[in-house]
């Protein structure tokens, strides 16, 4: 298995009380999969992502990528954050070149690669702008281009569209879906938005809180062209709602 989480626990002590963020979590992910970690806040989805990305150590169990235990962040697995993490003193082009600099890529090559990925995320012509001159959606596109530029194997996304308005979010969801197909990356995507998960994922890992654990893993049998209003889409969405016990039992008659 490409990514292997085995019997992993993570405990925090907060205000003298012990808090179980992950309780014996096991999960296998194949190369090229688009996985959504879905659940309410406190379910450990971000903790699990941070453990996979190497930002946090787990208390017990193992987290392996490609057979190797994860101990620190690596340039092969890039994380996209909710608040973008762009460097405000660098323009868009220099931001995208950031990771390439540590890979010791030559200057011209860096520029070429950065421009290529800026085009891929639809930001050609924005090279000389600074982050604060861009909208939130555009900033996240720059962060995505920056991540893609170092050609990572895995992209971790921690509620990346959480701070964006609904329309921009949908546009970016479509783009990330297209990019994941074109670039053939493994993507682990944390969200609390059920519709977002159904739209994006090959498999949805549904998580619960107190203690943080995996409730079930739902395969999304939708093709690569997903329509938010199609019957299949709504069917899968309803199934997830049921898992969260959020589907109303009573029948309501609609007059339209």
């Amino acid at each position, binding site marked *: 298995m490409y990514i292997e989480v085995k019997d992993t626990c993570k405990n925090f002590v907060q205000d003298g009380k012990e808090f179980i963020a992950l309780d014996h979590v096991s999960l296998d992910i194949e190369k090229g999969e688009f996985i959504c970690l879905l659940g309410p806040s406190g379910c450990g989805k971000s903790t699990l992502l941070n453990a996979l990305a190497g*930002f946090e150590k787990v208390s017990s169990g193992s987290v392996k990528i490609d057979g190797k235990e994860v101990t620190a962040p690596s340039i092969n697995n*890039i994380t996209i*954050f909710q608040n973008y993490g762009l*460097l*405000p*003193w*660098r323009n868009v082009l220099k931001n995208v070149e950031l990771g390439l600099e540590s890979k010791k890529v030559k200057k011209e090559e860096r520029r070429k690669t950065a421009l290529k990925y800026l085009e891929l995320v639809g930001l050609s012509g924005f090279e000389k702008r*600074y982050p604060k001159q861009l909208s939130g959606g555009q900033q996240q596109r720059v962060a995505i281009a920056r991540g893609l530029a*170092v050609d990572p194997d895995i992209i971790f996304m921690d509620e990346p569209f959480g701070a964006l308005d609904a329309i921009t979010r949908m546009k970016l969801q479509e783009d990330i879906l297209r990019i994941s197909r074109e670039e053939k990356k493994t993507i682990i995507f944390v969200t609390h938005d059920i519709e977002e998960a159904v739209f994006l994922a090959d498999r949805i890992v549904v998580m619960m809180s107190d203690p943080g654990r995996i409730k079930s893993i739902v395969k999304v049998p939708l093709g690569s062209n997903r329509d938010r209003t199609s019957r299949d889409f709504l069917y899968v969405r309803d199934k997830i709602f049921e898992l969260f016990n959020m589907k109303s039992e009573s029948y309501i008659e609609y007059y339209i």
Partner: protein
Amino acid sequence: MILKKLISLKNVIISVSILILIWQLAFNFSSYDKALFPSPKMAFDALVEMIGNGQLFENIKTSMYRFVIGYFSSVIVAVTLGLILGRLPKVFQYVNPMAQLLRPISPTAWMPFIVLLFGIGDVPAIVIIFIAAFFPVLLSTVSAVGNIDPIYLKVSRNFGIKQLQLTRKVIFPAAFPQIANGIHLALGTAWIFLVAGEMVGAQSGLGYQIIDARNNIRADILLATILVIGIIGIVLDGLLRLAEKRILRAWGGQS
């Protein structure tokens, strides 16, 4: 833009005129000998005299030399040390009490000690400026590094940016606005203590010129020198503000 500048120029002229007027009135009504308490006109004549015989520029040159060396070496050492200590909070725990103990001591208090060690000349003035600028810059740099948004460090770890590269590409620019604040504050303090240093530990420079004028009972020269010190202080502040703006603009104009 031009209108704004004209209005602020008008304010400056009015403000300075009021100051001169008060001075003139004080002169008119005072019972002091005019050699001890000269009029604005007399101070201005003394200024012209000092410019004429080259004495003023000689002393400005001497003072600026000491100031530039003391201030810039202090800023460079303090920022470097601050960037290191800011990343080592455990070490800073031990350095901080030391800094807190030394900081409230007026740099002038060190003066006799410094003169004992280094004698009279350039060194005491340079050392006193160094001390005056050092603590504000050091402490503001350490706190600036501590206040960096953790996401920048997370991104840097992710992209494998380490040590010197991390400091140069991420930590320094991220902390710069707050560091610049400290550097700016220290400029004023350093200029104040240059004069104090030269009054005690030197035989040249603007500070010494004040003492020299007193010894010769030339109150007109004394007051003219004070004016020059004030004007140079304003000019230095303006130059630094300009440099700060340049750097910030080069870094995407964050304010």
